[in-house]
């Protein structure tokens, strides 16, 4: 059952990775990065169910927090670039 979920999640990762590498403007890349990190958080949570391992939940939380911060940092940088 979870294998199917992993296939779907990997497909989603590949698709948003495509936008991440192609994306004409840097904002497109940041959007793709945001999506990628959310998908990876979900992947970590489902992996914790798959491996029956509690600790991956902690890692997922920290990963989500850090990726949110990185998105805010990059967008602050893009915004300041034109001022």
């Amino acid at each position, binding site marked *: *059952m*979870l294998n*199917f*979920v992993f296939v*779907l*999640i990997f*497909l*989603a*990762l*590949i*698709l*948003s990775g*495509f*936008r991440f590498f192609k994306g004409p*403007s840097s*904002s*497109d890349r*940041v*959007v*793709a990065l*945001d*999506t990628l990190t*959310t*998908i990876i*958080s*979900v992947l970590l*949570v*489902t992996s*914790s*169910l798959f491996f029956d391992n*509690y600790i991956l*939940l902690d890692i*997922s*939380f920290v990963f*989500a*927090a850090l990726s*949110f911060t990185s*998105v*805010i940092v990059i*967008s*602050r940088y*893009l*915004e300041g*670039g*034109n*001022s």
Partner: protein
Amino acid sequence: MILLTTLGYIMIILGSLFLLLGALGIVRMPDLYNRIQAGTKATTLGALSSIIGVGLVNPNWFFKTLIIAIFIVLTNPIGSHSIARSSYKSGLKPELQSEIDEYKPENIQDERSDLR
């Protein structure tokens, strides 16, 4: 118990489908703002559904998965708003056909008067 487990697995699968939908949206949508919309909405619901689903399958973790889900639902719109606003400020205008743009710098007074 078996009911909760089944419900949990259904939510996980639905959630991952929404994640795939969000990724597809990012690839297929025509311009940046539409991509942000598709990406944010679909991944937020996908993440919420999958993570709560994991909590339902393993009820010992429910509280923890709940707070991860709340965190993602709170932060994802903030992040995408921040990206959208900064791209608008850095000059990436959306493709508007109807020319309705009430956020133009000349329509609102600019707060950046204290530039160094």
